[in-house]
């Protein structure tokens, strides 16, 4: 997605010691807020939901107790679900606003260069990446969105659709059984919880690795919270985008002052907390699925 236009363009090579570092802006404020909201919502949904799915483990009872008992957990789960729907809808509305602001056609919104919809270039990059992995070629010059980022993005769409719809069915069973048989509630339960398990497992392992735990990013990448990334990193990670911006001569429009250390430190603390919850959850899932399965 195209990002906000920086208000105060500043020279790139200002000395570090005098002026704050200027960084490339990758995410808008709304996008960052939405991601934080989604993290909170997702962690809440995952924790409360998994206590139910793995109710046979001792851990589930402990977590359930910590969260104020099952009734309270239910409320948290439903409130977080509302937040998640809110995030999703807000994002869709934001896309429409973007289209209006940028005077884009639907086609260019979906298929344009900033779009997250996978295209032929992604297929080439996927093949190039696999070759790079096995040493048959160089690292592809990724653009603004890599194919795995696009996968993560659309996984959320898929998850919202599948988990959201089954979740609503389970939330309002009396209403929905006017249209569907009661036994579909059983099916919905399995789909809801297994899809949630997939989402949780995927986010807390593959997504975490791709974004944070890759040795060159270790231990975390806070770009999604600050919205900014060092220009060096842009050059390295997204060379195609960097080159396009340089070619356009619009790179400077996307540069902004870095946040002071206090902000980044706060963000890191939040990031650590989210990572900790995520990893604990992964351990718990592994324990519940492999060692305590019933």
């Amino acid at each position, binding site marked *: 997605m195209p990002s906000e236009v920086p208000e105060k363009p500043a020279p790139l090579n200002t000395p*570090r010691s005098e002026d704050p*570092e200027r960084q490339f802006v990758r995410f808008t404020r709304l996008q960052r807020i939405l991601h934080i909201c989604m993290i909170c919502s997702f962690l809440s949904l995952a924790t409360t939901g998994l*206590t*139910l*799915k793995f*109710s*046979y483990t001792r851990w*589930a*009872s402990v977590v*359930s*107790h910590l969260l104020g*008992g*099952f*009734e309270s957990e239910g409320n948290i789960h439903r409130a977080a679900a509302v937040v998640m729907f809110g995030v999703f809808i807000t994002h869709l509305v934001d896309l429409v606003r973007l289209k209006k602001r940028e005077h884009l056609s639907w086609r260019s919104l979906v298929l344009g260069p900033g779009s997250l919809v996978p295209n032929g270039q992604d297929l080439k990059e996927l093949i190039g990446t696999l070759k*790079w*992995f*096995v040493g048959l070629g160089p*690292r592809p010059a990724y653009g603004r969105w890599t194919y*795995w980022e696009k996968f993560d993005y659309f996984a959320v769409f898929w998850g919202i659709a599948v988990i959201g719809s089954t979740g609503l069915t*389970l939330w309002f*069973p*009396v209403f929905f*059984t*006017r249209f*569907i*048989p*009661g*036994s*579909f*509630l*059983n*099916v919905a*339960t*399995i*789909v809801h919880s*297994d*899809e949630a*398990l*997939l989402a949780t*497992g*995927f986010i807390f*392992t*593959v997504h975490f*690795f*791709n974004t944070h735990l*890759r*040795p*060159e*990013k*270790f*231990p975390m990448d*806070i770009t999604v919270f600050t919205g900014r990334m*060092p*220009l*060096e*990193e842009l*050059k*390295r990670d997204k060379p195609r985008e960097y080159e396009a911006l340089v070619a356009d001569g619009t790179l400077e429009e996307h540069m902004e002052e870095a946040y002071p250390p206090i902000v*980044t430190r706060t963000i890191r603390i939040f990031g650590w907390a989210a990572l900790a919850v995520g990893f604990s959850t992964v351990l718990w899932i592994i324990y519940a699925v492999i060692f305590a399965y*019933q």
Partner: protein
Amino acid sequence: MAETKIARRKWRLGVAFAAILITLFTLRISERPVRAADPPGAECLACHGDKTFNTTRAGKTVSLYVDGKKFATSIHASFGCTGCHADLEGKDFPHDKPARVKCGTCHSDEQALYSKSLHGKAVARGDALAPSCVNCHGNHAIYPVKDPRSAVAPLKVPFVCGQCHSEGTPVSRTRQIAQDNILGNYSESIHGEALLKKGLAVAPTCATCHTAHSILPHTDPASSINRKNIAATCTKCHSQIESVHRKIIRGELWEKQANVLPACPDCHQPHKIRNVFYEMGMANADCMRCHANEKLRRARDGKSMFVNIDEASHSVHGKKGIACSQCHSEVNASRVRPCETITKGVDCTSCHDEIGKLYATSIHGQLNAKNDSNAPTCKECHGTHGILNKQDPQSPTFAVNVPNLCARCHREGQKAAVRYTGTQHEIISNYTESIHGTLLKNGLTVTATCTSCHSAHHILPRSDPASTVNANNVPNTCGQCHHGIEEQFENSIHSKKVSGYGKPLPVCNDCHTAHSIHRTDENSFKLNVMGTCGRCHEKIAETYFETYHGKVSRLGYTKAAKCYDCHGAHDVLKVTDPRSHLSRANVAATCQKCHAGATRRFAGYLTHATHHDPKKYPFVFYTFWGMTGLLLGTFVVGGIHTLLWLPRAFQMRRELKAAEAAAENGEPHAGKDTKEDGDA
């Protein structure tokens, strides 16, 4: 005419004379054959009248002499010898040994009584010492009982009986007879004195009390000296006796309920009955002469013999005016220390007969019968002199005090608890914390205590079919209070009457436990009930935990539907039963208890669905495996991608570090270092 009259008179006299002669002659003729054998048995006495007439039987010389004079005066004289020795009628001499005379041929009533008596049965057994008719009545010289010559005349009876029942005789030595020195005691008793020393023929002899022919042991209910009959026997003579016993025994009870009161021999010992003022020695005041002393101790073991008369007089017995001697019935007023004749402890069953029988069949009674020192007797629970009515809050048997009473032995570590090998432990503390115990602590005396379920006197182990806590009897026992629930239960599938199922079915305590029964609206009960039902319904309980209701219940949520919310608690029925809460007609209403507006279609939710059963739940099964496939596929692709990436990523990191190091060595570098990364 005159001559004619005279002639007629002469003729009449002649006829009369002739008639007299004929009559006399006829009489003579008719008497003649009898007279021919006169004197009685003369024909027999020709031989048997000889005192030296004898024979040898089994190597012994037996006299065959019969005293003809005595026989001639006996009551049987007119029947002659063959009247009794009927088998010798018309026999040639010398005849064989005659058969044993059957007195019962004529004396059939006496014979019948005798046959059932102790003596008659002993004879039938072939007991050589057992007396037959002749042992008491003699043989040829039999006289009416009132005749002083009779062997069984009143004055002779004690000696007739004494032949066998006096000290030193084979009978007294070899037979189990509870009484000793019978004849000696009798002759010194008021009865014996009157008869033997004063010649009072109406004084009671042995036969007066024991009867002549129907002699039975006192343990036989038909015996004249049985506890229940002795009063009737004594009152044959002492018909107004109850009026003088009124102070001790209320007259009307004495006759109507002789079995629940002390019987005559309890105070007036058999055979020893003396002419003394019995009441004297039995008044409480006399006992208290010694027993009011707080320091009084028994010589044998130093046990305190102090009796708190205040306590005793306020006891349930004291209030009814029951005297010491009515319980301590072996006292003998003729002694200086009336209590020295006491050999046994107090027998409460002499009044509390029915309870005594129940107790004897209970496990306490059975152990007591085996002389088990741990077995509680009446006094262990009820106390001794200070026994109070169970309605009295001070009584140990008052409802609120019962658990503490039983706890004396059944609390963990106490003598009954250490012997116990069953499954129930911490009985007392569990009970105290149970709903029944809590209610009792709050003073609700009608709640269940130990005795409500186990009964007070008929306590039996659970394994005994007669036990109130035997599985078959538990519903009835609980139903004493929980009647409505028992009715529901008896109509449920868990009742054998309904299911006709042979194997053990659950009863109240299987779900509610025995001693730690909790309110069913307590969370602990609600959350444990699935495990409880699951003890039998193992599979179905497991599948319950795979669905929403089960999962949230396991997390401690008590509002989710439990087994009984859908199936009913006590009125569980097969789901195919139209009356079941889950029948087609009722299931929607059952769901609506929690899910307002639930429809039949809503009730189609599979509350026991499992993804392990493709036949029963194909949708669930295939959805589960479909989702699992999706999960595995995604993780495998994602995982491989990540693993392949890892070496390259490390390589990149190394290159970055190298570049960074190069930059710091002063090598000009266009861009900035990845400061963020470096910081981290």
